[in-house]
C-alpha cells in the first residue's frame, strides 16, 4: 500500500499559468488529495529561488515525494530531478504535472482550464506515490566518432574532432569527399572560390592521422547502446587496390568507354567507366563503374588492368563489411537538389535552355562542361553562343504546397550569385523573378544591394509559364509573368531561364533515420531534439546532426553546425560516460509462465529463455525501456520501473475520480 508525504509545488510561470487559472483554488484542491503534506506556489519555480524553496520544504516537512505542477516535463524534468536530489531525495521521486503546454496554453475557457488542471494534478499526485527510488547507470563511452557524409558539414565535424585528438571514421557514399560544395564555382555573398576554400579542408581530411576515410562506403547497420554503438559499414568494391594505387590516372586515360554521363557534373559532362569524379577528388584513386565497364558487361577488355603501372586494378574485389565501435555518431548526409522535371509550367528537360540550379553551378564551374562559360544549348548540346538575356525564377519547388512548403533559404542568394557571375561572363541582361527576396545572413543584404546596383532587373512575380518560340533558328523563351508591383501581365523574351530549385531531403532519409533510431520531420529532414535549444542533438543519445540533412541551410550555417555537432560529440567523449535511464523492465521469475511472448516482441534481444529454470531472463544493459514486453506479458510477471502498471493505473484513477466537468 502506497504511503508518503507529498509536496506539491505549483508554478505561476509568470502569467502563463497564473493568468489562466486560479492558483489559490488549485492549491486548495491539492490539499484535499491523499498523502499531500505541503502545498506551495511560486512565481517561477524553475528559478534558483523556486528550486531552493522546494529543497527547504523537502527538509522541513521531511517529504518523500514531490510533484511540480509547471511546464512540460521535456522542459524541466531534469532540472527538478536535480533539485530534489540535492535535498536528499532520490531523483525519481518526482512527478511533473504539465499545467502549461497541456493546459493553460491550449485551453480557452478559464474554468475549464482550472478543472483540467485539477485532473492533471490529481493524476500526478496519485502517480508519484507509486514511484520507487531508481539508480541511474553510467555507461562507458567509446572514444571514437563515426561521421556519415563527407560534405562540408561532415568535413568540418571530422576536422574539429580529429584536431581534438579524437578518432574519427568518416564514411562517404560517393567515390570522393566534398559533397555539393565541390560543384560550386563561387560562393555567396563574398564570391570567394568554393574550391579554394574547400580543397584544403578536403586534403586535410585525407591526410589527418586521426581520420579514417571510407569513401564509396555506406552504413549497413547500427546496433549497440548509447556510448557504445556498433556501426557496420559496407565498403563497396572499388575494383582498385587502394594500397598500391598511386592515382596516376593512366587507367582513366586508357579506358575506351567514354560516354557515361557524369554524376558529379549532373550529366552535363561525360566520364569513363574507370574514373575519378572530379580533378580535386579526395582520395585520388579512381573507381570502376561496374554497370558500364565492358569487362563486367561482356567479360573482356581489361585494358586498364594491362596499362596500370602499379597493378592496382582488381576485378575480383568484393564488397567488404567493417564493424566500427563508436561513442557518438554524426549524421551529415546533406540534401538533394530538387528536380523540377515534374513542374509542367517551366518545361525543364524539354526546352534546351531551361536550366536548373545545380546545372548552373556546374556550368559556371571552371572544371565544368564549358570551362565556366555560359553557352546556350541547341538540341541538347552546348553551342558557342552566349545568352543576351537570362531570367532566373525563384522559389521553384520551394514555398509551394504542391512540392515543398518550406523556404529553402539559399535560393535567393544563389540566384543573385548567378546574376553576378553570368553578367560577368556574358554581359547579358538578367531578370530575377522573385516572390520575396530573403537576404537574412551576414553580408547578404549588402550583396542584394550590390546586385541591384549591377543593373539586375527584379520582377516581383512567379512566372506562370514559359513559352517557346524561335527567332532566327535560336530558341527564344518567353517568360509570362505578372509584375505584382504594377499589376501588369508581362512577356519577357529571353535566351535562357534558370530555375532556382529547392533543397530537398535525401530520398532515403527515412531509411537512414531508422538505422540510427532518429526521427524525420514532416519534410523528411532529420529531426533535431529541439529546434532552438538543441539543434544538432537528436532524441537518441550520442547521435548528432549537421548540415542540410536537418533542413536547408547555407554554407556558413552548415559549417557552424558541423562544428557544433563535433562539440556535442566531443563533450560526450570527454566526459566518458552516458547516463542510461533506469526506466527499464524486470521479470519476476516466480510469476513467469515461460510463454516466450516477451522474447518475441523485444526489439533488442534483451530477453532470453533460461532453459534450465524455464523462465524468461532479461539483460538489463540491453533493455531500452519501451515496455512492449510489459504490456504483452499475460501473467503480469514483467514490470517496468517508473512506467509501472501501478503508476499508469494511478494516473487513470486520479483523472477519473476528479469527476466530470459540468457542461
Amino acid at each position, binding site marked *: 500500500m502506497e504511503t508518503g508525504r507529498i509536496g506539491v509545488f505549483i508554478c505561476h510561470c509568470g502569467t502563463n499559468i497564473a493568468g489562466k487559472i486560479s492558483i489559490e483554488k488549485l492549491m486548495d484542491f491539492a490539499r484535499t488529495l491523499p498523502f499531500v503534506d505541503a502545498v506551495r506556489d511560486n512565481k517561477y519555480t524553475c528559478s534558483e529561488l523556486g528550486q531552493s524553496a522546494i529543497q527547504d520544504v523537502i527538509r522541513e516537512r521531511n517529504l518523500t515525494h514531490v510533484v511540480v505542477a509547471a511546464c512540460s516535463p521535456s522542459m524541466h524534468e531534469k532540472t527538478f530531478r536535480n533539485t530534489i536530489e540535492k535535498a536528499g531525495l532520490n531523483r525519481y521521486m518526482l512527478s511533473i504535472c504539465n499545467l502549461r503546454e497541456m493546459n493553460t496554453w491550449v485551453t480557452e475557457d478559464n474554468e475549464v482550464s482550472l478543472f483540467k488542471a485539477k485532473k492533471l494534478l490529481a493524476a500526478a499526485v496519485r502517480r508519484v506515490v507509486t514511484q520507487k527510488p531508481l539508480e541511474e547507470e553510467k555507461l562507458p563511452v567509446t572514444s571514437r566518432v563515426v561521421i556519415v557524409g563527407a560534405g562540408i558539414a561532415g568535413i568540418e565535424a571530422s576536422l574539429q574532432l580529429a584536431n581534438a585528438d579524437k578518432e574519427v571514421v568518416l564514411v562517404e557514399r560517393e567515390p570522393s569527399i566534398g559533397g555539393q560544395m565541390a560543384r560550386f564555382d563561387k560562393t555567396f555573398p563574398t564570391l570567394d572560390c568554393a574550391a579554394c576554400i574547400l580543397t584544403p579542408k578536403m586534403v586535410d581530411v585525407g591526410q589527418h592521422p586521426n581520420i579514417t576515410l571510407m569513401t564509396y562506403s555506406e552504413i549497413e547497420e547500427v546496433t549497440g547502446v548509447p556510448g557504445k554503438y556498433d556501426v557496420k559499414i559496407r565498403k563497396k568494391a572499388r575494383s582498385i587496390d587502394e594500397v598500391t594505387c598511386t592515382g596516376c590516372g593512366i587507367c582513366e586515360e586508357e579506358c575506351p568507354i567514354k560516354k557515361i554521363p557524369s554524376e558529379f557534373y549532373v550529366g552535363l559532362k561525360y566520364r569513363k567507366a574507370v574514373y575519378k569524379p572530379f580533378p580535386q577528388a579526395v582520395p585520388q584513386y579512381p573507381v570502376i563503374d561496374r554497370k558500364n565497364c565492358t569487362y563486367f558487361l561482356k567479360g573482356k577488355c581489361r585494358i586498364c588492368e594491362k596499362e596500370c603501372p602499379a597493378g592496382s586494378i582488381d576485378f575480383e574485389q568484393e564488397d567488404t563489411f567493417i564493424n566500427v565501435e563508436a561513442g557518438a555518431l554524426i549524421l551529415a548526409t546533406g540534401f538533394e537538389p530538387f528536380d523540377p522535371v515534374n513542374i509542367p509550367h517551366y518545361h525543364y528537360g524539354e526546352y534546351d535552355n531551361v536550366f536548373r540550379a545545380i546545372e548552373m553551378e556546374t556550368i559556371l564551374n571552371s572544371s565544368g562542361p564549358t570551362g565556366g562559360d555560359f553557352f546556350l544549348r541547341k538540341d541538347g548540346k552546348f553551342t558557342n553562343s552566349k545568352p543576351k538575356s537570362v531570367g532566373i525564377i525563384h522559389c521553384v519547388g520551394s514555398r509551394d504546397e504542391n512540392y515543398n512548403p518550406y523556404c529553402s533559404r539559399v535560393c535567393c542568394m544563389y540566384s543573385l550569385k548567378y546574376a553576378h557571375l553570368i553578367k560577368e561572363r556574358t554581359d547579358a*541582361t538578367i531578370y530575377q523573378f522573385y516572390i520575396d*527576396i530573403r537576404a537574412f545572413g551576414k553580408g547578404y543584404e549588402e550583396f*542584394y*544591394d550590390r546586385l*541591384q*546596383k*549591377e*543593373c539586375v*532587373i*527584379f*520582377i*516581383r512575380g512567379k512566372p506562370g509559364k514559359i*513559352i517557346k*518560340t524561335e527567332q532566327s533558328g535560336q530558341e527564344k523563351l*518567353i517568360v*509570362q509573368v505578372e*509584375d505584382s*508591383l*504594377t499589376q*501588369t*501581365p*508581362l*512577356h*519577357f*523574351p529571353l535566351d535562357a531561364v534558370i530555375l532556382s530549385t529547392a533543397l530537398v531531403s535525401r530520398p532515403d532519409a527515412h531509411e537512414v533515420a531508422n538505422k540510427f533510431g532518429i526521427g524525420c520531420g514532416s519534410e523528411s529532414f532529420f529531426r533535431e531534439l529541439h529546434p532552438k535549444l538543441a539543434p544538432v542533438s537528436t532524441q537518441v543519445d550520442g547521435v548528432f546532426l549537421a548540415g542540410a540533412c536537418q533542413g536547408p541551410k547555407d554554407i556558413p550555417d552548415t559549417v557552424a553546425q558541423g562544428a557544433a555537432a563535433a562539440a556535442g560529440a566531443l563533450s560526450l567523449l570527454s566526459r566518458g560516460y552516458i547516463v542510461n535511464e533506469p526506466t527499464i523492465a524486470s521479470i519476476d521469475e516466480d510469476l513467469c509462465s515461460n510463454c516466450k511472448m516477451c522474447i518475441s516482441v523485444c526489439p533488442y534481444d534483451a530477453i532470453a529463455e533460461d532453459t534450465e529454470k524455464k523462465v524468461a531472463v532479461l539483460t538489463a544493459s540491453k533493455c531500452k525501456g519501451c515496455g512492449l514486453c510489459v504490456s504483452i506479458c499475460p501473467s503480469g510477471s514483467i514490470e517496468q520501473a517508473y512506467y509501472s502498471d501501478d503508476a499508469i493505473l494511478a494516473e487513470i484513477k486520479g483523472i477519473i475520480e476528479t469527476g466530470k466537468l459540468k457542461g
Partner: protein
Amino acid sequence: MSSFSRYAVPDLEFRKKIIDMSQENLNFCYQCSGCTGVCPLNMVIKFNPREYIHRSQIGLKPLPMDFEKLWQCTTCAACEDLCPKEVEITEIVAALRSYAIDTGEKVPGSYTQALESFYSYGNPFNLGADARSDWAKELNVPIANKETEVLFFVGCNASYDPRSQSIARALVSIFNKANINFGTMGNKEKDCGNCIYFMGEKELSDHERSQNEAVINEIQPAVIVTTSPHSYNFFSKRYDLPKGTKVYHYVQYLDQLIKEGKIEFTKSLPETNVTFHDPCYLGRHNDVYDEPRRVLEAIPGVKLVEMTNNRRLTNCCGGGGGNSWAETDINERLSIPRVNEALETGASVLATACYFCLTMLEDGVKGVNREQDLKTKDIAELVAEAL
C-alpha cells in the same frame, strides 16, 4: 509575337534612359513603398511614387494619365527623407518629366505656360527680363560689382510677384540697417534653374545657370544670399561658384547677423504665437531646421509654437516642382491640410521662409476663410517689422 499581344513587353531603352537621366538612382530601389506611404500628395490625390520607380526599373512607361499626374509631384522630398536606400526620388521624377517632354507626352497646360515663359523671358510670369529689378527702383538697391561683399540673389517670384516682392523689400531694409555692403544682379539675374530642373527642362536649367555663373564670376562676391530656398538648393549643390564664395539662404544669414550682434531689434511685436512651416527645400533638401527657429525666437514678442508635423516631418505647401504656378483644383491643394494644421496650434501667425510656401499658404488660409485668425508672413517680414 502578336499572339501574345495582351502582354506588355518591357522596353529596355526606356529603362536605360531613365537610369542615365536619374544618375542610376533607379537601381537602388527595392520597392518597400515607403515613398508612397509618406508622400503628402496622398492626402489630396492618389499618387504612387513607388510604381513610377518600379515601372522605370523594369522598362514599363507610365500610362499617359500617370505621366500627367506626375506633374503634381512637388519634389518635397518627404520620400527621399524616409527612403531606406537613399534613392534620390526627385531625380527620378525629374528624369521622367524630361522624358515626357522629349517624347511629346501630354504636359498639362499651366506647366507648359510656365515653361514657355521661362524659355522666352527667364521667368514664369510672361514678364520682360528687363522688368526684373523694377521692384527695387525706389529702394536704391545697388547693382553688385567687384567691390560688393554680399550678392543678394532675389529669385523670380520676389522679383515679379507683388506679394513676394515684400520679402525682397524686407531683406533690403534689414541689410541697410545692418550696414551690409550688398548688391543685386539687377536685370542680369536669370532664374536660378532649380524649378525648371525638377520640371524636367534640364538643358534650359543648365543654360540659365551658366548665365548666372558668368555674372557671378565677374562680381566675385564673398557671400551669396538667396531669398528662395530653391535658389539656395541649386546654388549650393550645382553652381560652379568662385572659390571661397559662400552661399546662404537668408535665414542662415540673418541668424549669423543676429549672433554677431549686427542686427539689433529695436521694437517688440505684440505678444504673438507664431508657428513655423519648414520649406521643403530648406529643411528636407538641405537640413536647415534650427536657423529659422532661432531667428524667429530672437524677435521680441514672438512665441514659437510647433505644428505636429515639423522639421523632417513637415507637410508640403504644394508649391514645389513648378506647382506654385499651376492651377490646382481646391480639393487637390496641399496647402489646405497644412493651414488646418497651423490653425490647430492656435497661432495667429503662420511664418515661413520661402516665397512659394508663402503664396500657397496664404491661398490656403483664404481657401478656408480664416484670414481673420491666421496671418501668413515671411520671416524676413517679421524681422523687418521689429527693427
